[in-house]
């Protein structure tokens, strides 16, 4: 539901970057989204497609890279990829500290 807010922010950041670089058209906007963010990609694309109309990004598409959830044990220091949000260390009695999966980044803007 907050995808519209995210799409608005993405568009504004991309348009600012394009203007600063005197670009006339944006082709692609690259995003990195962690798996532990509440983002529905379909809703994000839909919102972006509505908002981009009549801007430099009119023909732009979102290129989305997803980042899996990974965490490091606060005791044994081992790194694990999480599937089911289990933040207990599978190998000792430590607790896993989130390392990746919360990314909400705009990586690049491809324009001319």
């Amino acid at each position, binding site marked *: *539901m*907050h995808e519209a*807010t*995210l799409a608005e*922010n*993405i568009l504004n*950041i991309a348009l600012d*970057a*394009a203007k600063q*670089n005197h*670009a006339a058209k944006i082709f692609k906007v690259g*995003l990195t989204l962690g798996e*532990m*963010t*509440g983002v529905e990609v379909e809703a994000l694309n839909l919102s972006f497609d509505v908002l981009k109309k009549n801007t430099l990004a009119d023909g732009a598409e979102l290129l989305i890279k997803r980042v899996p959830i990974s965490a490091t044990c606060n005791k044994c220091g081992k790194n694990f990829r999480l599937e*089911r*949000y*289990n*933040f*207990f260390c599978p190998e000792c009695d430590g*607790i896993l500290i*989130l390392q990746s999966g919360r990314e*909400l*980044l*705009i*990586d*690049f*803007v*491809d*324009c*001319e």
Partner: protein
Amino acid sequence: MEIKLMRNILGANDEIAAQNRKIFAERGVIVMNLMGSPGSGKTTLLEKTLTRLADKIKIAVIEGDLFTAKDAERIEQAGVDVIQINTAGGCHLDASMIQKACVSLNLDAIDLLIVENVGNLVCPAEFDIGENFKAVVLSITEGDDKPLKYPLIFKESEVTLLNKIDLLPFTNFNLQSAREDLTTIHPTIKIFETSCTKDTGLDDWEAWLLGKVAR
């Protein structure tokens, strides 16, 4: 040409949240971001909490609501300063809404600011408003599967209130598995079992909350 950005999509919100957090710290205000589904009992919990704490600490409330002032009217009855934010359909509160609302609050006269977020288990978890901690209310009637279905909000929240606990015998809610799922997602999460209509568990909740403010 490719312009490298590597910028946080919510960076603008996070910057304002950081400003809010700095102002709250300077003024000595502890801020709780109270979240949960529509109908989980956030406002009733708030009413009970205000009644209990009224003569102990100074509290103000910011009420997030899609369209109405119904909750704010309820809170006003408790004799507490309340600011209403109508998000007009928006699914969450953000840092700039809190910044604007705080203009009409005398922060120096407040110990605890409670922000009741829009009823929703998804979006509010993603938006930092400059709070000290997040609290999430999960009512028994919503089902014990909610922690695993909406892990982010439980990961982000320092405390969960399993509310309407008096209704447990009338549902298939499995308290043990809900507790296990909550601690699996967030090993250090604090859990209270409460019923605001039966006054169950509220002493412990009150003591814990007072502890947060005294710190």
